[in-house]
């Protein structure tokens, strides 16, 4: 309940501001000069953004353009290497598979999280006794520290003593080496990531469902529409904006996923579950001899992907708020 009122206040406020601005220019103009002092309240966060977002980003770009060794990393003076690090990364035989893993991991995670999240949202939208409590409980996987979820799934998927293989054994399926065979490691980390992402999809889609006026359903019920027709005729089209936002946020989030994969498989075995994020970490921090240059280069490729998704998200959200 509070979730919907919250989102609607934001939208209403922005809409209100948009309509309020044109009619009354004189008071706004007379007040405007005095508004610069408001930056006093914004100064801390502005300095913070510059120092702790912009500067690390800049350092990262710089890392990717120089040839660093451990010594020059500490003492400075690494020679400028241009795009060499990027060339190294792009021509690395691991690049193709890693990019593929990243895309498969992202696409599969999104598809399952969204579908299951939508199904659960639709189910919980039919209010029944305890529905609120149960919906809140389902949030647990999303709130747990990722290391907790990842290590729990590691044990569930353990080849010899894991519950999943024991359950498969009951229905006569041979044990699977979930985390230790190259054929299954990517699937395993996708399963864990889907589990973590379902609650988020559920909550956001549920708040979208609540915004659909009940009269729409009553009208279609009078027309004798079945449940399935109602979903495709009313719910799905009206939920499209929220769905799009959910998927894009999921995309931005999934591209960044590092903890789960690193803790469960370290990207292995033999790179079979490595994504751009874990590869970058491995190069920078995972080996005895760090390769900061190529690691930073991969990081920057990743950020380009994330920013493209981010800009699409912002565009879509702006357009929706204007409507």
């Amino acid at each position: 309940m509070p979730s919907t009122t919250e989102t609607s206040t934001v939208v209403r406020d922005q809409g209100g501001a948009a309509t309020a601005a044109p009619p009354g220019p004189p008071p706004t103009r007379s007040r405007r000069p005095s508004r610069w002092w408001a930056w006093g309240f914004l100064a801390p966060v502005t300095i913070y953004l510059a120092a702790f977002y912009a500067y690390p980003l800049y350092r990262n770009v710089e890392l990717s353009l120089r040839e660093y060794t451990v010594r020059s990393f500490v003492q400075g003076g690494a020679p400028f290497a241009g795009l060499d690090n990027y060339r190294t990364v792009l021509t690395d035989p691991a690049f193709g598979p890693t990019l593929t893993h990243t895309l498969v991991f992202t696409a599969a995670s999104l598809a399952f999280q969204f579908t299951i999240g939508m199904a659960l949202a639709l189910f919980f939208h039919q209010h029944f006794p305890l529905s609120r409590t149960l919906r809140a409980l389902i949030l647990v996987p999303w709130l747990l520290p990722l290391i907790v979820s990842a290590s729990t799934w590691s044990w569930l998927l353990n080849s010899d003593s894991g519950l999943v293989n024991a359950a498969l054994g009951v229905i006569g399926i041979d044990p699977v080496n979930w985390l230790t065979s190259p054929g299954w490691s990517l699937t395993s980390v996708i399963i864990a990531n889907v589990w973590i992402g379902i609650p988020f999809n559920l909550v956001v889609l549920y708040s979208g469902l609540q915004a659909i006026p009940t009269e729409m359903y009553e009208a279609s019920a009078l027309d004798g529409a079945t449940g399935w027709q109602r979903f495709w005729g009313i719910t799905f089209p009206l939920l499209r904006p929220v769905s799009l936002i959910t998927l894009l946020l999921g995309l931005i989030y999934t591209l960044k996923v590092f903890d789960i994969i690193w803790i469960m498989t370290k990207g292995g075995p033999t790179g079979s579950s490595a994504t751009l994020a874990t590869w970058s970490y491995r190069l920078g921090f995972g080996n005895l001899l760090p390769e900061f240059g190529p690691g930073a280069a991969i990081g920057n490729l990743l950020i380009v992907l994330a920013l493209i998704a981010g800009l699409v998200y912002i565009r879509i959200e702006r357009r929706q708020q204007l409507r």
Partner: protein
Amino acid sequence: MTTSTPRTWWKTGIGLVLTGLMLFPVYWMINVSFTRDQDMRASPPHLFPTNGTLDGYRAVLDQQLPYLGTSFLVGLGTVALTVALAAPAGYALAKLRPPGGPALSFMLLIAQMIPGIIMAMGFYAIYLTLGVLNTLPGLILADTTLAVPFAVLIFTAFMSGIPDELLQAAVVDGAGRLRTFWSVVLPVSRNSIVTVSLFAFLWSWSDFIFASTLAGGGDYQPITLGIYHYIGNNNQQWNAIMATAVVASIPAAVLLILAQRYVSMGVTAGAVKD
């Protein structure tokens, strides 16, 4: 509302099953945390900790308390710094609307899309030069980057709802802008401060990437690293690992029980988590 009671209770049944399925891994974590070493590799695995042991939790008490303490301190520091930075910014963006404000909001939106690994590498390079690797303030500063953009967003959204008349009344009473902020805006924004604090604490408590890159070699290691070392060092003592995991989940559980409505507020209003 016309509800046929038998039908809705039938749905509650399905709801219970679905919730049970979703939460099963959590149950399994708790179950394993009470399982004796000799039962750990039993086939089939014991579904209930019938011969339960507290060995796992004893190991937590013996070995993990320093990690938990560090996480707690880092969490409190992150909360304090996040609120101090974000609340004034939210007030300015929501109520004062200075020129350039929208541009700043846009940058904050972009900022939370930057993958953690990139931030970590940049921070590592900077911290190495400054010599603040493996220090508490260093880790706290890095962890705030997980929460500050979200916090500004939440504060802006909540504070837009404060009636302008309330703020004007304060000005009429002779309060300056700073005083208005301190004695009017902050007290009525209690809900948003709670929401922001809860999430900031939870995210810094859960952080693994900054901990492993910026604090991995020092005296101040948070609980996420405590678990990580456990997994790396002793693959056998899964009851201890899972007991630590259970203890590490307590903040999330407390959050959900005590502050359920703030949680769903945070999820939908911010909608962006790392």
